[in-house]
């Protein structure tokens, strides 16, 4: 009897899991490339397994490598360690040691406050794919909120498409020769402190980040053979970020804002909006969400991202069928210039282990001063088939 209890305990106490997904992807462009060297359609494969070894008390080890091979762009073929960390769970604290991923933010179209991880820009231009970030992360949850402390000992450079890739700037970004303001370069130790609180129907978070800015400036330079290139320039910044969310009935109200200081310029940026949910529309089982957001950046057209004074309207649909069919489509429009972009993300399951997704990106209109101007010929459809294991 005792032996049985013991066996039960052991099998419960430790768990080893392997999961993940493998994806094949095709990207189809509707227009000829604008810039020399750029290729058309591309095919690529990606693999992201996840190994987890956990204890019954919640502590555990996670290893998530990621690799992509792309037929067109060698810069898009890349390997990354998304996660390689040990989570220790104390009575009143949680400590993460190693490479991990942290997401902050509430809005759907822009991710202003999210700063811990660098954007893996070759994966997608929506800024939701991130590179693994080495960190020491101590989280102290209390009744009156959660305090999160971060020590980030190593900086990850943003990925950019290469010469052959689409969805890039002209001249191309040369990631081989980044420029740092700090003499410590990528070994500058960055720090962040965040306080967050959930109170009734409110979620609230505020943080201060000090260290190497994740968003590079792009400096015009020449490469070894004398051709013009853009070189990423990483500055030392201080950034205060705020995110607030409230649920009021069927409405979700969202606000994100940052104030960034640096040697070059101090500025404010913000995004605010709402999502209105409709459930079981006309007894069809369909759920729909209407999204409206406005994003502002004090830097205006100088901002390296496209949302400086833009309105985004979107609709999220969930069919609630067995295949879990979902779609999110949106249109964004700059209120100062003409640029206007349509985007679609959609997907459904095929059986229990497969999923097919279809994404689309169309530049409806753009003018020379816009950040999306270099992408004006890159309207594309992306089809992905993923196998989950």
């Amino acid at each position, binding site marked *: 009897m005792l032996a049985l209890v013991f066996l039960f305990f052991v099998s419960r106490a430790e768990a080893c899991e392997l999961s993940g997904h493998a994806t094949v992807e095709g990207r189809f462009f509707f227009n000829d490339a604008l810039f020399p060297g750029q290729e058309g359609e591309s095919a690529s494969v990606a693999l992201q397994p996840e190994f987890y070894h956990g204890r019954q008390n919640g502590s555990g080890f996670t290893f998530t490598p990621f690799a992509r091979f792309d037929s067109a762009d060698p810069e898009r073929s890349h390997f990354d360690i998304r996660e390689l960390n040990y989570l220790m769970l104390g009575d009143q604290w949680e400590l993460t040691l190693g490479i991990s991923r942290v997401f902050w933010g509430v809005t759907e179209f822009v991710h202003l406050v999210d700063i811990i991880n660098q954007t893996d820009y070759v994966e997608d231009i929506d800024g939701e794919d991130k590179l693994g970030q080495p960190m020491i992360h101590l989280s102290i949850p209390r009744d009156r909120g959660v305090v999160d402390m971060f020590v980030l000992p190593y900086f990850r450079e943003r990925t950019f498409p290469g010469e052959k890739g689409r969805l890039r700037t002209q001249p191309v970004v040369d990631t081989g020769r980044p420029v740092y303001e700090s003499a410590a370069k990528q070994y500058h130790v960055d720090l962040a402190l965040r306080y967050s609180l959930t109170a009734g129907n409110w979620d609230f978070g505020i943080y201060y980040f000090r260290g190497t800015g994740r968003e590079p400036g792009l400096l015009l330079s020449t490469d070894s053979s004398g051709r013009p290139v853009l070189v990423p320039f990483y500055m030392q910044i201080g950034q205060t970020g705020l995110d607030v969310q409230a649920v009021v*009935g069927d409405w979700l109200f969202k606000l994100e804002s940052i104030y960034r200081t640096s040697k070059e310029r101090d500025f404010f940026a913000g995004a605010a909006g709402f999502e209105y*949910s*409709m459930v*079981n529309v006309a007894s069809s089982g369909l759920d729909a969400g209407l999204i409206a957001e406005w994003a502002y950046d004090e830097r205006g057209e100088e901002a390296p991202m496209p949302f400086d004074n833009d309105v985004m309207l979107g609709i999220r649909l969930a069919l609630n069928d067995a*295949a879990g069919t979902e779609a999110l489509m949106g249109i964004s429009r700059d209120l100062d210039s003409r640029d206007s972009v349509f985007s679609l993300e959609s997907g459904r399951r095929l059986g229990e282990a497969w999923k097919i997704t279809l994404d689309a990106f169309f530049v409806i209109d753009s003018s020379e001063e816009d950040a999306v101007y270099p992408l004006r010929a890159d309207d594309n459809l992306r089809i992905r088939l*993923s196998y989950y294991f």
Partner: protein
Amino acid sequence: MKPCGKAAVYLFTATAVMLLLMLLPAAAGAETPEEKGLAIARQADARDKGFRDSTVSLLMTLKNRHGQESIRRMRIKTLEVEGDGDKSLSIFDSPRDVRGTALLTYTHKFGDDDQWLYLPALKRVKRISSRNKSGSFMGSEFAYEDIASQEVEKYTYKWLRDEVYNGLECFVIERYPVDRKNSGYKRQVIWIDKKEYRTLKVDYYDRKDSLLKTLTLSGYRKYGNRFWRASGMNMMNHQNGKSTRLEFSDYRFGVGLRDSDFSRNGLKRAR
């Protein structure tokens, strides 16, 4: 003596009248069907008090009208909250593309529940609006309001009749959602067995008052010498011909779950 005797008579009469008045409502059966329905619901709720926390594995089988099946697996952790609705954490294990997705719910006796969804691919916690409870849970025939913690205060009640169902003496009561605007139902008719106050069957009537779904519960087992839990639930949708079967296994009580397991931090590290 005389005045004293008179006083005694008055006192006796007054006491008798008062006692009669006190006994009268019960004796005359003055408990209304509404009061009786509420009393039954309260009794059923009271019998489940004190379970503290529980964990359970759930296999959900969706069946369409052609008999094609698809399955979802999840684990549910529940924490009893003194004076308010329960907190629950559902962690999805399959289909594999949603593996690791977790749903945290704070049920409230009054007003809207609080709900957050954790999306593991983005490591993102999203708050979701939970006012409207009639939406489908995971594409199944269960609506959020069907699987949510069934707080007494969320309905008004009426006892209909007593009836034998599946060989068990039952109360048949009707209940009406308090938040009528955001429920998918006009009313529900519930069969509760008289001996153990277990729900055996529920008929759901849509907002137009036509029969929409029937839930049948089976395989009741007693845990911790006190708490009855069904191991099978079958929801049949009469209007679209689809059905969803839930099979619960590995029920465990008093496993020492804490408030911090049901926080946003707890949601992020749920596995």
